[in-house]
């Protein structure tokens, strides 16, 4: 095991001291949402105690202070994903809203009947449904590139589906249901060679690896704050400036305009054009604090530690008779999805909960993935930087015991 100061890190996450059903909490539902360090909790509390006012609209001291902190968080996020400019960082409610924004602005403006949007068979519902809605509105068609039994994109099929009519590629960077990390650079290079823009759904990837949007050269990148150790209610849309400039606005309202008369409205410049209404101010600042925290630990250090956790868990899981891992891609993030012979994931979830272990049981908002594997649902343990090998032992012992109880 490389040296990773996990015990020190755990002290930064106060919820990890909770007892669940009189047992120490073992929180393995990080892909659904992860826990918050003191740095984030305290920052949000500090904002409300000392710095809070609406942003971008007051001349008074607090409004200026609040605006400064808000815009400072935008700069932190820009640096974190290495975007070229803060104009390219749009605050949204989360990954879902970011995708809907692109569909309803870029998509509506650029898609015609018969045009195609290409996704993969491992997408989260939030990277399926907004495109289906757009297809209904525009007459465009949704194409789906298949996956293999390991849960990997079949690249040759993807390439075949990338046709003359494809106007947009929207692909998950890392799958929440399977853990698969897609070959996004290869996808982007191929799509760009045919002048097709690419949106990456980074909701799962961003907490687990360093992301450089310029190196990737993706056109859009979306993620949620709450899966990145930050608060819920805030997310990000990164878009290349030229694309964002050309896109019509999303919602109308305050902040997104420069000048309004009843005859005519002039839209604000980037990024404000896409930020109508009062944003989730303290949460944006809290997300900035999460990013400071992540930078202190180091994304590459986190990635290396989590890879060891996943290897450890995978090896242990393989030793359990009757356990089938769902998703065994060669490139995989810290997610272990599995099913047990004759034991439904919901029973697994309730039984493990009684041991203090929180996992997710269900379809993970990826029903097409469940259909592909012909399972109604899976149980999923997903790891974060504060998890330990001992916690994985508790999980695995729990699984072995519940198999025994079910008989």
């Amino acid at each position: 095991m490389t040296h990773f100061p996990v015990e020190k890190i755990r002290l930064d996450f106060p919820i990890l001291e909770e007892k669940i059903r009189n047992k120490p909490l073992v929180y393995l539902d990080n892909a659904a949402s992860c826990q918050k360090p003191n740095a984030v909790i305290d920052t949000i509390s500090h904002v409300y105690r000392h710095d809070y006012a609406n942003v971008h609209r007051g001349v008074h001291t607090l409004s200026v202070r609040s605006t400064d902190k808000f815009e400072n968080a935008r700069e932190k996020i820009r640096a974190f994903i290495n975007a070229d400019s803060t104009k390219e960082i749009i605050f949204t409610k989360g990954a879902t809203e970011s995708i809907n924004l692109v569909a309803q602005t870029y998509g509506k403006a650029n898609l015609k009947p018969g045009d195609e949007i290409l996704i993969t068979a491992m997408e989260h519902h939030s990277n399926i449904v907004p495109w289906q809605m757009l297809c209904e509105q525009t007459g465009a068609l949704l194409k789906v590139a298949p996956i293999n039994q390991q849960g990997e994109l079949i690249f040759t099929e993807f390439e075949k589906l990338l046709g003359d009519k494809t106007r947009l590629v929207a692909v998950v960077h890392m799958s929440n249901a399977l853990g698969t990390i897609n070959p996004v650079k290869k996808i982007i290079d191929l799509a760009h060679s045919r002048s097709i823009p690419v949106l990456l759904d980074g909701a799962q990837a961003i907490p687990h690896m360093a992301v450089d949007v310029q190196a990737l050269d993706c056109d859009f990148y979306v993620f949620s704050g709450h899966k990145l150790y930050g608060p819920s209610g805030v997310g990000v849309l990164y878009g290349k400036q030229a694309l964002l400039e050309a896109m019509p606005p999303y919602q109308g309202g305050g902040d997104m305009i420069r000048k309004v008369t009843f005859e005519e409205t002039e839209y604000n410049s980037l990024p404000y054009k896409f930020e109508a209404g009062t944003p989730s101010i303290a949460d944006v600042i809290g997300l900035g604090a999460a990013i400071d925290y992540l930078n202190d630990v180091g994304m590459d250090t986190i990635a290396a530690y989590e890879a060891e956790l996943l290897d450890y868990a995978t090896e242990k899981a393989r030793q359990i008779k009757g356990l089938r891992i769902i998703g065994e891609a060669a490139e995989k993030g810290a997610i272990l999805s599995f099913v047990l012979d004759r034991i439904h994931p919901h029973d697994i979830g309730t039984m493990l909960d009684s041991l203090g272990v929180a996992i997710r049981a269900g379809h993970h908002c990826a029903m097409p993935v469940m259909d592909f594997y012909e399972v109604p649902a899976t149980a999923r343990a997903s790891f974060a930087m504060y998890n330990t090998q001992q916690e994985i032992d508790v999980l695995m012992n729990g699984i072995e015991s519940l198999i025994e109880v079910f008989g």
Partner: protein
Amino acid sequence: MFDDLRDLYQEVIFDHNRNPRNFRVMDNADRKVEGFNPLCGDRLTLYLKMSGDVIEDASFQGSGCAISTASVSLMTEIIKGKTEAEAEALFKTFHEMTTGKDEAIQLEAVGKLAVLAGVREYPARVKCATLAWHTLDAALKNEQKSISTE
């Protein structure tokens, strides 16, 4: 190891999960309704054979968790020979028992179904136990369609 769960997972539930009763397709069914819980992907098909307003036979097919499988298995046993009105009354009592609205519920009134009373302490699992009964309710109302817990 799972002592805390004894109220929820009673031996009867494991038994019905391992060996579900009336688990078969009924070719000559008068009523056939599908139940679906989108939250967990549980699906079941309920078959009823009626004789006047008496449920002469009941069976099911489908896959679900132990709670939902035991619930539908127990239900098919208990409703056989009951009139529609009796079955509806049982549904109502069962619903009250599992959602815990009536603390003073008479467990004797539901007979064997009392083993499912434990779900009231697990709000996330109540729908597992009630799916069978919502499906029955639809079948008795002769709604020939799929029903959903959501």
